[in-house]
């Protein structure tokens, strides 16, 4: 198997095989990045940019949940991850636009500032590829 459909095995659909491996890795990196960043900033200089740091923490939680869902697999996890990816994409686009329109609201950057430019645009590319991958994993045949 080089690519293609997520494997169906022993009832629970695997979401972390094939291209899913790369997604798990990149989401894992973003979890570490967003969580550790916000942990340091919130514990040391929260007053400087509370909004930015809180948003980074929220992003970290969302990334964590998606990573867990991808690793766990199964239809429920797939749907939950899909919903979170849509949420994530909306978050990146909203915060990205917000930081461009009103930079004064953000004295310091978040992971989602300027559409994730500080993270090689991974924050905006990741949900798009994850949504594509998760939709491909939808059950075929009956319209369940």
């Amino acid at each position: 198997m080089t690519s293609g459909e997520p494997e169906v095995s022993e009832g629970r659909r695997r979401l972390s095989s094939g291209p899913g491996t790369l997604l798990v890795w990149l989401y894992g990196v973003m979890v570490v990045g967003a969580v550790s960043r916000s942990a340091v900033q919130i514990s040391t200089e929260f007053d400087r940019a509370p909004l930015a740091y809180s948003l980074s923490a929220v992003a970290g939680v969302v990334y964590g949940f998606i990573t867990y869902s991808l690793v766990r697999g199964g239809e429920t996890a797939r749907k939950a991850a899909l919903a979170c990816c849509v949420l994530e994409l909306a978050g990146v686009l909203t915060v990205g636009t917000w930081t461009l329109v009103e930079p004064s609201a953000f004295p310091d950057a978040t992971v989602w500032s300027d559409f994730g430019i500080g993270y090689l645009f991974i924050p905006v590319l990741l949900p798009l590829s994850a949504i594509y991958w998760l939709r491909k994993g939808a059950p075929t045949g009956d319209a369940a």
Partner: protein
Amino acid sequence: MLDALTLATGVAALLLAAWCGWAAYRDQPTKDWHFIGMAVVTVLALVQMVVGFVQLGRGEKPDQGTTIFVAYLLGAFACVPAAGFMSLAERTRWGSVTVAAGGVVLAVLEVRLYDIWGA
């Protein structure tokens, strides 16, 4: 911080990324030689971490803070092994792609480490 070591680790990480990217392009999983390459890069990151801790121990201060510096040192060390383990579980081209992505991430971490330590 030893600039030469940071540069060497960054370049080695990019080479590893290119090598595994090539394997992925040829539709191959990571093989023994790739794992030796990962080991070399990991040893470089380990040496860098030890050197970084020694320099902190001597009382030198990174420009952007000790906590962030230590976090990045740990991240840089764990980066490639983590991707390597994932490619062990995924014996397809996608395992190679993952290690390639790990190499790119490590190179970015090296640039950040250089900034954090300061001139």
